[in-house]
């Protein structure tokens, strides 16, 4: 009998990427025997949370599903880093500001500027007027630029394809080059109307690179990330960054980041429970840099999930010819799926991963023994014999769309 390890979201062992990421262990295969046998799984102490069952409709029946794995498949459920690269920025302005003129930093000739008017959901609020691109004026210093735009896209053109309603856009003429420009709207706008100004500099050498080691985090821990403003030669020094978290409900929470050895971290603040299961949080970064006198603005964001540990696999698994029996410690009522890759002994006498099996059950709080059923007919077709072994085990809270545990 060999020991295997399964790490939980909140546990950290030698292979973990950061304190806040979904963790993996190196060894996972459960020992299996032809007859029922027990397999030890070492788990760290986990503080589970008890929360009420979600209100939305949740399947109550136990369901099992197995599928054959493709030959020589390179399946991995390991957490993956995510990187976002931005060549654009955006800001919010009022109609009054647009009528007076706003300053925009341009780093790439031919940049596209999109102006989108806010349409309030509040019927008492005045709706913003779509801006006529013919009424947009561009100047540099004191000089109004003629032939400033190579393309103008009207609200009607956007709206006919239902893209960016209440929006218009202008593309700067290439000959204008880079630098600071003043954009002014000559069309009379209501002072308090709000507009989004989006400067898109496709292909700009000035970029904000934002990356996180995992998109699955746990509550109250640190989110680790990297952020770099760069040009084609490398990192821009002395860049400034502002960060905020956007919750699934749309609330914005300003956060402070800390830098240690070139890496950044933010301690996740107390946030209201995610009422919208499956909906994600976002880390937003607004950066300002300077490249030899040229101002560079960039915005970037990455999405992530915050799991709440509502259940865990305990240390015992029994595997037999038709199923594995797994003990779950359930703290919150809900629907949970366990899954694993099943290996058997092939004709050459070697262990071979052949099947992905999944079972889901609706469970009440407490210690629960649940089956992970195998498709025995499929195993026969796949021509493998016992002993069967489990790897890549996962526990998922389907009712809250949270990945809780994986090998």
């Amino acid at each position: 009998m060999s020991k295997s390890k399964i790490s939980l979201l909140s546990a950290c062992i030698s292979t973990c990427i950061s304190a806040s990421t979904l963790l993996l262990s190196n060894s996972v295969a459960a020992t299996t025997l032809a007859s029922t046998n027990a397999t030890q799984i070492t788990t760290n102490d986990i503080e589970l949370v008890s929360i009420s069952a979600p209100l939305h409709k949740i399947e109550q029946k136990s369901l099992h599903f197995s599928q054959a794995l493709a030959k020589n498949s390179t399946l991995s459920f390991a957490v993956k880093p995510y990187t976002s690269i931005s060549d654009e920025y955006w800001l919010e302005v009022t109609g009054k500001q647009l009528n007076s003129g706003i300053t925009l930093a341009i780093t790439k000739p031919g940049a596209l500027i999109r102006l989108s008017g806010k349409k309030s959901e509040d019927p008492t609020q005045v709706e913003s007027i779509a801006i006529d691109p013919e009424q947009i004026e561009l100047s540099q210093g004191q000089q109004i630029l003629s032939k400033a735009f190579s393309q103008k896209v009207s609200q009607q053109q956007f709206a006919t394809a239902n893209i960016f309603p209440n929006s218009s856009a202008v593309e700067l003429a290439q000959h204008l080059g880079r630098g600071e420009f003043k954009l002014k709207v000559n069309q009379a706008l209501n002072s308090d109307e709000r507009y989004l100004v989006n400067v898109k500099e496709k292909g700009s050498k000035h970029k904000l690179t934002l990356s996180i080691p995992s998109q699955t985090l746990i509550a109250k821990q640190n989110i680790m990330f990297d952020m770099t403003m760069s040009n084609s030669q490398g990192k821009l020094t002395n860049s400034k960054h502002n960060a905020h978290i956007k919750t699934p409900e749309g609330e914005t929470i300003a956060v402070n980041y800390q830098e240690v050895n070139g890496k950044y971290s933010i301690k996740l603040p107390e946030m209201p429970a995610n009422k919208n299961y499956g909906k994600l949080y976002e880390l937003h970064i607004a950066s300002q840099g300077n490249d030899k006198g040229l101002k560079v603005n960039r915005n970037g964001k990455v999405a992530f999930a915050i799991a709440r540990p509502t259940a865990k696999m305990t240390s015992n698994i029994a595997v037999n010819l038709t199923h594995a029996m797994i003990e779950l410690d359930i703290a919150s009522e809900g629907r949970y799926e366990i899954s694993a890759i099943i290996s058997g002994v092939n004709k050459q006498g070697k262990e071979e991963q052949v099947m992905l099996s999944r079972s889901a059950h609706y469970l009440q709080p407490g210690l629960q023994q649940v089956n992970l059923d195998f498709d025995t007919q499929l195993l026969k077709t796949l021509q493998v014999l016992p002993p069967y072994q489990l790897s890549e085990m996962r526990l998922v809270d389907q009712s809250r769309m949270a990945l809780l545990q994986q090998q």
Partner: protein
Amino acid sequence: MKKIMTAIVLSYLALLASASANQGIAFIHGTGHQSDAYNDYWTGDFVNSVRQGLSNSNKYTVINCDFDQFMWVEAAAGCLANQLNSFIANENINSLVLLTHSNGGNVVRWILSNPTYDSRYPGIINTTSKVIAIAPSSLGTPLADAATQGNVFESSLGWLLGYNSDAVKQQQVSWMAYYNNSWLSGTSGRPTLPSTFKVVVGSDVDSAIWDSDSYCAGYQYQVALETTQNWLDSCSDGFLECSSQSGAGTVWFIDKQKTQGREPLSHQQSRRDCFNLDTIIRNDI
């Protein structure tokens, strides 16, 4: 002689299989809350052409669901599951082809990837012979990110056939990366989908005013789609980058490889009878 005999036997077996299969096709729309997708999303010309590829051309259904929602919610995947199961039961379908466009591919992938989530899913999975996914937004699109820029603007900015929708949020690039890595099958390194998921990729937008090809499915759309390419890389259909469209399953063909006149298919054109797309699909089912 042996080869001829083998060919005859294989043909006979194919005929037998064809005779025993009761094939049907479901047209599954993209983002938007549809109540008449036959007319408003696909058009009758497209649907009626494609379904001629069935041995019984009446075995088809056009799905109408609320795909402004996240793919997993009842109004989206639940609605789709109900309509597919009704179609399977009422028409005794045992070989189902799912024809999806855009975000419809994600909703289908949700069902195929999560067989234990809902008891309505396994029957669909077991009956589905293949998915033909036209321009699926498998890896999301930067346009969805652009449409949700600025916190206070979420309620104002729209989307193709939908405004302020959760489906737009879902199709942001980093959101789809999370869903693909945690909840969906079919992308690199993830479990394969239980059914073939073959993709038609739209690779360009042709908006030259003098080119009659720009007018298939409406010229005004083409102008808007060409502008949106500022947010996309050089290979895109105006809404989705080719890399997103080919991010799950296997690429069947990139538009110009099979379309009439080697014309590209914009995101609007790939759900209409433009450049023989309908005939190509008809001949495949």
